């Protein structure tokens, strides 16, 4: 199985490289074609025309777009993402400081979405044909219809303001210091043995991650239920029942295992959307991640950050797809043999 997985990774990377180049080219060209001059925010209002032209030259914005792209790409290969216009600092440093927060948020949301989605799917399947199924169906439709940022505001109003139960801005309460080893707050709290900080950080992540998960979980529920409906009439299920295997065991050990594969594919797609969802959720929850920084960069027309962050998002999507592919091979023996 190890060589099969290595093969998948190799093939994926081969496909990913030209894809990343294409994405980077698209992002670069589109950002330069929008009718907004990045220098507008880079120079002070009282800058003279000469100042502006000097700055344009310094930033290389006077060169043809393709030439600018080649220079930018060359710098990328040396690990240089450029310097932020607004912050005046290297983009790679800024991304490095904010990306771990986003990864942690997406991971927690993905875990929540998986748990809610699988549990909900199983419950919906169990309730099939009953009034309860209709209620569950309507609930999942409602969950899906509300966009994640609206869930975000709604959860703040309910759990943050009305019941005053959960925090909803930032990552830690005032007075709690943030340990820094790897940049990942949850991991660093564990590594430094600060479990109080860990619980605080998790508490601050409840509302934003639930807001993100609520958009993803209903789809998982529905696909899992449909898949279970399909496999439940298969011969091997009938055989298992005839052998006297208890119904719960039939569903979990036999039906679920096969119904989960299409669900996994969907989860892969949905989890890439979680990254997109962080843009607004991070702003609403004042969460210091890449999404928050990206929104600010767009407001400031901070091209170096937008380019760098867009590339990171593309890499994240490709990475998640790769993980889904690997999981697929690990879970599906037929696929392993076919390869």
């Amino acid at each position, binding site marked *: 199985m190890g060589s099969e997985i290595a093969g998948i990774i190799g093939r994926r990377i081969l496909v990913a490289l030209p894809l990343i180049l294409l994405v980077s080219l698209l992002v670069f060209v589109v950002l330069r074609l929008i009718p907004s001059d990045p220098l507008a925010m880079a120079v002070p209002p009282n800058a003279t025309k000469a100042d502006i032209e000097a700055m344009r030259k310094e930033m290389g914005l006077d060169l043809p777009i393709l030439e600018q792209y080649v220079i930018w790409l060359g710098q990328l290969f040396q690990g240089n993402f450029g310097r932020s216009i*607004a912050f005046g600092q290297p983009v790679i440093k800024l991304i490095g400081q904010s990306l771990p927060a986003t990864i942690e948020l997406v991971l927690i949301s993905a875990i929540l979405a998986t748990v809610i989605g699988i549990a909900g799917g199983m419950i919906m399947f169990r309730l099939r044909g009953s009034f309860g199924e209709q209620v569950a169906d309507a609930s999942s439709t409602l969950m899906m219809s509300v966009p994640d940022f609206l869930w975000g505001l709604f959860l703040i109003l309910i759990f943050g*303001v009305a019941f005053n*139960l959960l*925090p909803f801005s930032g990552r830690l*309460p*005032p007075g709690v210091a943030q340990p820094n080893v790897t940049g990942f707050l949850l991991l660093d709290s564990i590594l430094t043995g600060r479990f109080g900080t860990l619980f605080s950080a998790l508490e601050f992540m409840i509302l934003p991650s639930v807001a993100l998960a609520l958009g993803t979980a209903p789809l998982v529920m529905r696909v899992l239920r449909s898949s279970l409906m399909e496999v439940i009439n298969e011969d091997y299920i009938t055989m298992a029942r005839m052998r006297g295997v208890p119904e719960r065991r039939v569903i979990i050990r036999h039906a679920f295992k096969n119904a989960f594969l299409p669900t996994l594919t969907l989860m892969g797609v949905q989890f890439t959307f979680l990254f997109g969802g962080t843009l607004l959720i991070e702003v609403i929850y004042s969460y210091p991640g890449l999404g928050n920084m990206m929104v*600010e960069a767009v407001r400031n027309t901070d091209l170096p950050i937008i380019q760098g962050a867009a590339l990171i998002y593309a890499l994240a999507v490709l990475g998640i797809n790769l993980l889904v592919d690997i999981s697929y091979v690990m879970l599906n023996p037929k696929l392993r043999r076919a390869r």
Partner: protein
Amino acid sequence: MNRTTSLTRRLFLAGAGLALVAAPLSTAQAAKDSVVIAWQADPQTWDPMRRTNPGLQSIYKMVFDQPMTQAPDLKIIPGLFKSAVLSEDGKSIAIELRDNAYWHDGEKVTTADVAYSFLGRMKAGHKIDFVRVWRNVTEVEIQSPTKAVIKLKSPMPTAIQWMAFLANYIVPKHYLEKVGVEGFSTKPIGSGPYKVVDYQRNSRIVLEAFDKYWGPKPAIKKITIQIIKDPSARVAAVQSGRVDFAPDVPVREAQRLEKRKELTGVIFPISRVMLLQIRSDQAFKDHNVRLAAHHAINKQALSRAFYGGAAVPLSIVAPPGTPGYVKDFEIPYDPKKAMELLAKAGYGPKKPITIGMATYNGVFPSDYDIARAIVAMWKKVGINTKLEVIEQGKYFELNRGNKLPEATLYTWDNATGDPEMFTGYLLHPKLPFSAWKDMKVGARVMKLFSVVDYDKRIAAYKELSVFAAKEGATIPLLQAVTTQVYNSGLNVVRYKNGWVLPQTWSWK
């Protein structure tokens, strides 16, 4: 028995869970010598001289000192400089530094730091907006560790006002030379009332009172600033008691929260104006059309609809309480007169004139709504408007290329209240802020930039502001308002320029 045990365990878990989530509930009010503030923007850089961004001055003023500062009523008062005297020719400033000022690392503040801030950084090629303000500094003559003379190429009548304005701070020479601009921008030290002890970008800033601060020791020893950009989230944070103070919340929310006993909500006008920047050509070439456009706007109605009536209608670009304000002058709302003026120019409701108007959307409260309301008011008298939304920063790009439409909805912040930074900057034809390029007004403005005598200068600006309004060179709309909602237990000092300075606050 089993049932009872299970129930007890469940209750225990539920209780423990609740205790866990409720633990930080009262963090905001926990200690009476600390305060939690919800702030709307991340500083982006801790170099206070880098950008002339009005929104960040309050945060910078907590950590750094300005040479001069302002009282709540806008009066210019000594800051880090005990005194600053502009010479009669306006070409030199004799300054005296406080002899009990220290940097947060314990080093003493000296005139070497002043020379470095005013000239050294320029020579070192630092890309800071401060340099553009003081580009005509030729020399800083150090006379002693506390005395120096700043020499200028040409007169700068507003030099003292600028010392209390945007990007004007004194920074530590020794520290900047040691850690570099980038190091300073992320881990700053200043000489202000608080020192930075923790900064998490886009999340929070923790400040602690500096025990060697030269000025009054802050009653509040610890400040936590939560960066909460979303106005709804700021409202939720202050309403839930998780923060003690939230500025710039929507007007309606401030009015709603004001009714709660534990909170105080205030809406008050500040030294910021909303206006229409006007072109002197194209469809606005005719003076009658420009004045008609002015008379057709019901500013009181705009104030009531969008700012709870708190925004003061203006006829010149100098709000009440500032030196350049002219009390008895008004361009009234008079749609009938607007139609008469338009008729003189050959237009009217049956034969409307078409103009372009640019506006921001979301840069200042209700900007786009105000623009739409003006479009509707103009339509009634015979002015059709093509409304275009532009991004912040686009104004200068369009103005540089002479591509602004006839009118642009604009906001202008001037913490000092000085008329040069209002009428002067907004109508100086050579500056990028002004859309007005006609020299009839422009020549008078430019002349005033070299008048050093304060009284003469202010009197001349008053005359000029009235003249410009009568010419239709500008259409001032409203004095902007700010909103603050805070814990009723806090004594908050209200600054007329909107500054939020917790060093002046205390708990009741």
